[in-house]
């Protein structure tokens, strides 16, 4: 299964990749929304983890662009923005899950399992 990690923090991209593990997923990553769309078009992942606050193109706009390209993509938004309105907006735009930073490995695995079960 192909998974794309989108976050402007290299530390977060690496942490998510470490936790998810490469045995189950083929993983690629991107540091902003613009780069994410380029990788998405070439890599065609089934799952995307998406930060919101990023340079160039923000995560919510990137969610729109990805779902316009392939509506069945499963997207887990992972963000530090803790207000309810942001999580609601992400789900309204078509993301299947929302995980608040900072998160534990257990929380990440739980969210991904729920995403895949849908």
């Amino acid at each position, binding site marked *: 299964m192909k998974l794309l990690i989108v976050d*402007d*923090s*290299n*530390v*977060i991209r*690496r*942490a998510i990749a*470490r*936790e998810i593990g490469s045995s189950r997923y083929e993983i690629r990553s991107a540091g902003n929304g613009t780069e994410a769309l380029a990788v998405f078009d070439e890599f065609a992942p089934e799952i995307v983890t998406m930060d919101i*606050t*990023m*340079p160039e193109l923000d995560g919510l706009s990137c969610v729109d662009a990805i779902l316009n390209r392939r509506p069945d993509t499963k997207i887990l938004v992972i*963000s*530090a*923005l*803790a*207000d309810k*309105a*942001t999580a609601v907006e992400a789900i309204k735009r078509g993301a299947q899950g929302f995980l*608040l*930073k*900072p*998160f*534990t490995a257990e929380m990440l695995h739980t969210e991904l399992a729920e995403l895949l079960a849908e």
Partner: protein
Amino acid sequence: MSEDDLKVFVHGAARFFSKISPTPAEVGTPFLRDESDRVMSDFSAVIGISGNQRGCVYYTAPRDMVQALAEIFGESDLSDDICADFVGEIANTISGNARLELGPGFLISVPVVIRGRAEDVHFPDDAPAFVIPISWTGHRSTLIICLSDQPHSRRMAAAQ
């Protein structure tokens, strides 16, 4: 900026460390920054704030503390690039989490990271800068909150 606003960041910093580390941080009482205070450390990140409030949030920490935090995070690369990135992520997370109490009108920028002990950092003139000391496993870092309410924000209207 109200006392309650400062508490949001005090609690937010404590929550951040307790979430990523088995050892909680001791978050000290905020105090007003004096011009002569030299608070900037090896790695610093600034988040620009707009929307209902205007100003900035700084997080600054010494290299050994950032490396120790990165190790707990599972990171094996403890280079300066990783430390700079991680300090930016800490500032981003604490600022973003503040929206739980401050609401979606508290708009945050992407972090700008400064390496080295920058002493000529500019703080906005129209808002007081409060220093929040953070101690963790013998290391000391600092959160600096410099915010003013926007005149036409909903917060101001609600307070009047």
